[in-house]
């Protein structure tokens, strides 16, 4: 007897079809993984169950929960079920909590709304629940505000609110996507534990097959508003029946064909770089305060080499990248590339940039929306100063760069919003290639992409590396990606490099405890799927 059943649930918003006959079911105590890429409709499926849809949404089909048809309930009856019988956790712990309310009050609110308890009694109960999700009051007082908590702690508060009344069903929409891997592992463990102790069903929505493989009893694959395949997790991952599922699986496990050809001569050397950031002053006369983001880091990159730099958020990897490309000047130490050197004193940046370009994480934010693609791609030519090519040469080089990344030069007169995320990341690469650099720094360049797109971009990077001998500094938090594309890896924590070595060695036999934790926390599809991708 299933707790939740969706029977041909359809959803349109302003006459756009979002869900097209979604049918799935969750049994009591079961964990169902709902997997899909962005735009597949997985989040709206969750919101459809709770009937928290945006304006202009029309729901069709049938949604039954615990023997009642939810779609037939009035709004008043629905509010009685939300929070009490169905709890939900959202993706973004930074924004999902009210910044002006203490975490205790926010958890207590669930109780007060449904049970009508007084504030004191509800707060005491909320304290217990917070302790249960790993936030005991002696560690994190319920009278604190969300901004005083870390992302993982906030997500625990979100979980506490959702499970405060022991719901029969918990919906978790990408609950760990915004978190670091180690935190992600903890939150997933907590969810698994709560599902058991509270005897809840869990509808776990995620894009990550690794998480599904470690958490879910059964899996449903959503594509373009339809459930294309459903079944026991092990079976589906081991032997997918549908083409889309197979494609998804392949993309997740994809490793591009890259010929490792690290030369012996040093291209870039980073020597004892220190980078401090000033904190906002507390008062006019207060002494300036600062935080050390990069702490005495040294390493080299050789010609044609692909180096990975991994670390969690706040480890200083982005600060290091900024110091390398000269966006920020280091307080101490120096960055050398050929004859050019960047140190605490001025000079060098423009010169070094002719040989080194960068690609950013967010394909949406890294282009000026007001410029056309040809102008965007040509922008680094500014570096050449007086040697800047004329209009003809310029468009020739733009066309060549676009072709190199698989974008038709005929699209050069379009604006960036006309391109998809994957295309934009290709254009970003074209922009980096136009000055024919020796090194490209990729700052989480594939993290925001869906797996299938990510696979294509990785192929492209491998191809560029193969054909042009460009060195890559690949900054990422995702160990899969690093494993797939890099020769060597640097592990960074608290501003320092804690481990360095051949990628394969480091990831399979980590020596530093932090690297070990990182590797252990990373959910791997390989394990669930029987190690075939190894």
């Amino acid at each position, binding site marked *: 007897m299933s707790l939740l059943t969706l029977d041909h649930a359809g959803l349109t918003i302003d006459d756009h079809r979002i869900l097209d006959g979604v049918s799935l079911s969750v049994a009591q105590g079961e964990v169902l993984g709902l997997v899909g890429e962005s735009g597949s409709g997985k989040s709206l499926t969750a919101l459809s169950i709770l009937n928290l849809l945006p304006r202009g949404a029309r729901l069709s089909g049938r949604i039954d929960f615990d023997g009642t048809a939810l779609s037939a309930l009035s709004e008043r009856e629905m509010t009685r079920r939300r929070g009490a019988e169905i709890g939900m956790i959202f993706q973004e712990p930074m924004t999902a909590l009210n910044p002006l309310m203490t975490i205790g009050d926010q958890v207590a609110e669930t109780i007060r709304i449904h049970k009508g308890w007084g504030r004191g009694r509800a707060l005491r109960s909320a304290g217990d629940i917070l302790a249960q999700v790993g936030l005991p009051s002696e560690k994190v007082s319920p009278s604190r505000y969300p901004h005083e908590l870390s992302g993982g702690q906030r997500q625990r508060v979100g979980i506490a609110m959702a499970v405060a009344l022991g719901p029969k069903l918990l919906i978790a929409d990408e609950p760990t996507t915004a978190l670091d891997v180690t935190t992600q592992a903890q939150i997933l463990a907590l969810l698994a534990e709560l599902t058991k102790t509270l005897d809840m069903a869990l509808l776990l929505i995620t894009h990550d097959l690794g998480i599904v493989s470690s958490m879910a009893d059964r899996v449903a694959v959503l594509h373009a508003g339809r459930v294309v395949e459903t079944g026991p997790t092990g079976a589906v991952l081991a032997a997918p029946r549908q083409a889309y599922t197979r494609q998804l699986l392949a993309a997740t496990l994809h490793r591009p064909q890259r010929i490792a050809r690290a030369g012996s001569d040093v291209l870039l050397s980073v020597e004892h770089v220190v980078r401090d950031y000033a904190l906002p002053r507390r008062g006019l006369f207060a002494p300036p305060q600062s935080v050390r983001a990069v702490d005495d880091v040294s390493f080299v990159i050789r010609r044609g080499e692909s180096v990975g730099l991994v670390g969690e958020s706040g480890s200083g990897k982005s600060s290091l990248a900024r110091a390398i490309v000269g966006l920020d000047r280091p307080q101490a130490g120096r960055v050398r590339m050929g004859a050019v050197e960047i140190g605490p004193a001025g000079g060098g940046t423009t010169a070094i940039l002719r040989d080194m370009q960068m690609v950013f994480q967010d394909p949406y934010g890294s282009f000026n929306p007001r410029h056309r693609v040809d102008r965007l791609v040509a922008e680094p030519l500014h570096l050449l*100063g007086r040697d800047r090519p004329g209009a003809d040469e310029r468009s020739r080089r733009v066309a060549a760069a676009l072709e190199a990344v698989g974008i038709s030069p005929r699209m050069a007169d379009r604006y960036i919003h006309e391109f998809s995320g994957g295309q934009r990341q290709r254009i970003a690469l074209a922009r980096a290639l136009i000055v024919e650099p020796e090194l490209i720094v990729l700052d989480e360049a594939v993290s925001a992409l869906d797996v299938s797109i990510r696979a294509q971009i990785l192929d492209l990077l491998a191809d560029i590396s193969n054909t042009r001998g460009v060195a890559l500094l690949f900054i990422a938090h995702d160990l899969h990606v690093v494993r797939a594309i890099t020769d060597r890896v640097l592990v960074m924590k608290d501003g320092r490099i804690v481990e360095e070595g051949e990628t394969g060695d480091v990831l399979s036999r980590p020596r530093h405890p932090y690297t070990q934790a990182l590797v252990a926390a990373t959910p791997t599809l390989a394990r669930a799927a029987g190690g075939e991708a190894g």
Partner: protein
Amino acid sequence: MKKGTRLQPNLLIGAAISLLVLAMALLSLVWTPFDVTVLVVGDRLQPPNGTHWLGTDHFGRDIFSMILVGARTSIAVAVVAVGLGIGLGVPLGLAAAANAGSLLDDLVMRGNDIVFAFPALIIAILITAIFGPGAINAIVAIGIFNIPVFARLTRGSALALWPRDFIKAARLAGKGRVLISIEHILPNVANTLIVQATIQFSLAILAEAGLAYVGLGAQPPMPSWGRMLAEAQTMIALAPHVAIIPGLAIVVTVLGLNLLGDGLRDIFDPRMRGRRP
């Protein structure tokens, strides 16, 4: 989310009114039913009729003609005053944002605070007391208080843009702060500035009316809506149309500009635009 933009009634009505007022001002350059500098005291305070569509004022001038010419004055005062605010405020804001946290930034922001702290109308009165009343000085008085509005807005919007990746990309292309401010920041704050400009424009028209009320706006014989209204206010019991018509002209124009501003904001606001494809 729905893609594209539906034309809002706000925008249509606002644009229609604004264009109408502009057309009236332009028309007055080539044609008015009567010469507004000729006084026919004998014909004064006539109610609207076949000859004088909107009646005549206390000097027997044709109100319709004066509304046409007055539109010109009001628009000119507002355009130049807001232009002054944009011309000085935007570069200051861009410079402050480009050098966030620097002494320049501090100076610009504190300067803004001080200008904001001064009572606007009293300063306007002082300015006209020093330089004499007149359209130019009304413009200066209104314009000065537009500078911090645009400086602040530009700085705020620009500060939000500076950490964006495309600015980093431009820096990696070797571009300096000035070039980035012009090529990348300015085009991306332009929408916000346009919206604010329409609102400041309507405020400037109201401010001109307020200055005219204390006798400091455009000087005779050049008609302005504010002065028409100020001079007609004692006539409201005697010949209500003389006071009501310029009042309505101001209300409708300001309303139109505000609707236009709202409509533009709806179009430009990224939240209203089609989401990521």
